[in-house]
């Protein structure tokens, strides 16, 4: 009997295939959105974690200004760091191996007819160690270049590809703003990071060169500190805070004018963003499922009216009310399950597409797929019940007389 009911429902659905599809579109969109989002979200979380591990989770980023990551009015009133602070910090910190000073700016680099807007970074060799960059060809800076601020630079793979193509960059001179700069080294590619930003898109020169010829001041924008092996990051952070407060002469009771972040924190922040996005889309999906449910209810009500005579016939030949109820309920459930299945397929395809576009791993979640399936069944039950009950309550005599 149940099998008959299911067969009947599928027949009824396919008798009006286009209408059925339009009816379940809301569910398709809702389920599809959730699945695509969760798939991409999980892939990117995994990617962030992997990226951070690649960076080394023993890295600290020290920025001027409190709550630097929240984009407060940093920079204006807050004093920047300088090289002296960086070196004092490295000297005084027991739990830190190296601290690398970094200054940054964006600008155009030119070679021959080619040019590219990229990140221009001033730092010293400590940065390569701390951030785990390896040289592919050429060399890093030597002491004389660092000390006297010579116009030399190390470039990332993206910049090389763009400016030089197949030509050899080593020994060539590129122009960075007004500075002519010799390329002495090429870094090994790290590829895209989690959110698709290209980590190889930069040019690095000695800090002194940057300060004299690019920024025109002695500021250091941030410091990159590598925590000594085996030291818990929290302890290192606390030490940095204490020493830096002292170096910057912050009195008791005053707030820090800098922010120390470890990469784990950055990772959790990034996945936090993913979480917010997932949450937002889930809300959209919930609304979409509701609309989809109402669509199903509407079409089932139409169907019940259209098939009044059929209901009358069934009742007359001995169908009980609950059998008629079942018939229409099963039809609504199968209808929304179809929607759910199409949505799952669409969501997974979209997730796959998104993952390959963002260059993150494709991570479909069986749990979410199951939940989506159960959810669409639930939509069918909830929104199919009312029309089904209306069908079941019909009086056979009136139903048979219906035109």
């Amino acid at each position, binding site marked *: *009997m149940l099998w*008959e009911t299911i067969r009947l429902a599928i027949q009824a659905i396919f008798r009006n295939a286009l209408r059925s599809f339009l009816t379940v579109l809301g569910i398709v969109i809702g389920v599809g959105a959730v699945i695509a989002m969760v798939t991409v979200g999980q892939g990117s979380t995994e990617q962030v974690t992997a990226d951070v591990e690649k960076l080394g989770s023993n890295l600290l980023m020290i920025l001027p200004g409190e709550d630097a990551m929240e984009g407060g009015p940093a920079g204006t009133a807050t004093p920047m760091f300088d090289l002296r602070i960086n070196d004092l910090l490295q000297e005084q910190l027991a739990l830190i191996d190296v601290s690398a000073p970094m200054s940054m700016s964006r600008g155009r680099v030119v070679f021959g007819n080619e040019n590219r807007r990229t990140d221009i970074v001033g730092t010293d060799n400590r940065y390569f160690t701390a951030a785990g960059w390896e040289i592919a060809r050429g060399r890093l800076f030597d002491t004389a270049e660092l000390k006297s601020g010579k116009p030399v630079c190390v470039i990332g793979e993206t910049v090389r590809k763009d400016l030089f193509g197949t030509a050899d960059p080593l020994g060539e001179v590129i122009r960075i703003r007004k500075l002519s700069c010799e390329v002495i080294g090429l870094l090994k590619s790290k590829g895209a990071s989690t959110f698709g930003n290209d980590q190889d898109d930069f040019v690095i020169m000695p800090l002194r060169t940057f300060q004299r010829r690019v920024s025109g001041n002695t500021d250091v924008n941030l410091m990159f500190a590598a925590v000594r092996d085996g030291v818990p990051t929290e302890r290192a952070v606390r030490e940095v805070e204490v020493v830096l407060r002292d170096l910057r002469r912050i009195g008791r009771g005053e707030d820090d004018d800098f922010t120390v972040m470890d990469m784990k924190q950055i990772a959790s922040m990034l996945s936090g963003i993913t979480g917010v996005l997932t949450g937002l889309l889930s809300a959209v999906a919930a609304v979409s499922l509701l609309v989809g449910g109402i669509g199903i209810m509407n079409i089932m009500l139409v169907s019940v009216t259209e098939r009044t005579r059929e209901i*009358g016939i*069934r009742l*007359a*030949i*001995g169908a009980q*009310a*609950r059998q008629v109820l079942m018939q229409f309920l099963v039809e609504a459930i199968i209808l929304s399950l179809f929607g759910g299945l199409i949505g799952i397929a669409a969501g997974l395809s979209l997730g796959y597409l998104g993952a390959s576009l963002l260059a993150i791993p494709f991570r479909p979640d069986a749990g979410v797929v199951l939940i989506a399936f159960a959810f669409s069944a639930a939509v069918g039950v909830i929104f199919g019940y009312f029309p089904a009950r209306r069908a079941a309550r019909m009086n*056979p005599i009136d139903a048979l007389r219906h035109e």
Partner: protein
Amino acid sequence: MTDAATRRLPLIHLRGISRVYGHGEAEVRALDGIDLDIDEGDFVAIMGPSGSGKSTAMNVIGCLDAPTAGQYRFNGVEVAGLSRDLRALLRRHYLGFVFQGYNLLARTTALHNVELPLIYKGMGRAERHAAAIEALAKVGLEHRAHHDPSELSGGQQQRVAIARALAGNPQVVLADEPTGNLDTKLSREIMEVLRDLNETDGLTIVMVTHEAEMARYARRLIWMVDGRIERDTPTEEAA
């Protein structure tokens, strides 16, 4: 047996059956205290002016409707006060219906239409199929089993409807104006089918008709006026 107390009740036994629609001013007494006995194997035609309560009587006898007052024993069992669902079970197992408008499921083959009541009886696929083919054979339509109603003539559609009523092997077939939509020639065909079923299979049939000629196929004629039975005679005498 002449002792009234021990005599078996007829298959259908109505006493003082009333069916009242509406309340107060708008009250309509569609059936007004009907007494009626129908024995197994009988073929009864009900006639009467429009609005005299023929269909209402059929609905009550067929357990599609419940009477407002009175006694209805079917097979000796009181059924007047049964719930909706129990009446559905009675219809499923003991009653077959033929309607004026055929009432076949559209876009569904004759075979499937005939199988429909058997599905509710919980019959298995193969058994159902065999029973449906047999019922279609009884009305001479086994060769049309795989046609949709839209591919059949009115007379053929009504025969499929009769086959559907027969498929569940009911004790009574109730037919409300079964020839109402058909011309005289097709009407006669349908009446011959019903008469054969009554004569050869001993099927009990209750039928409403407006045409005296069709009523003559029955054994017994009941004439209704204003919700009452005015006359109840064998058809040979009525003619």
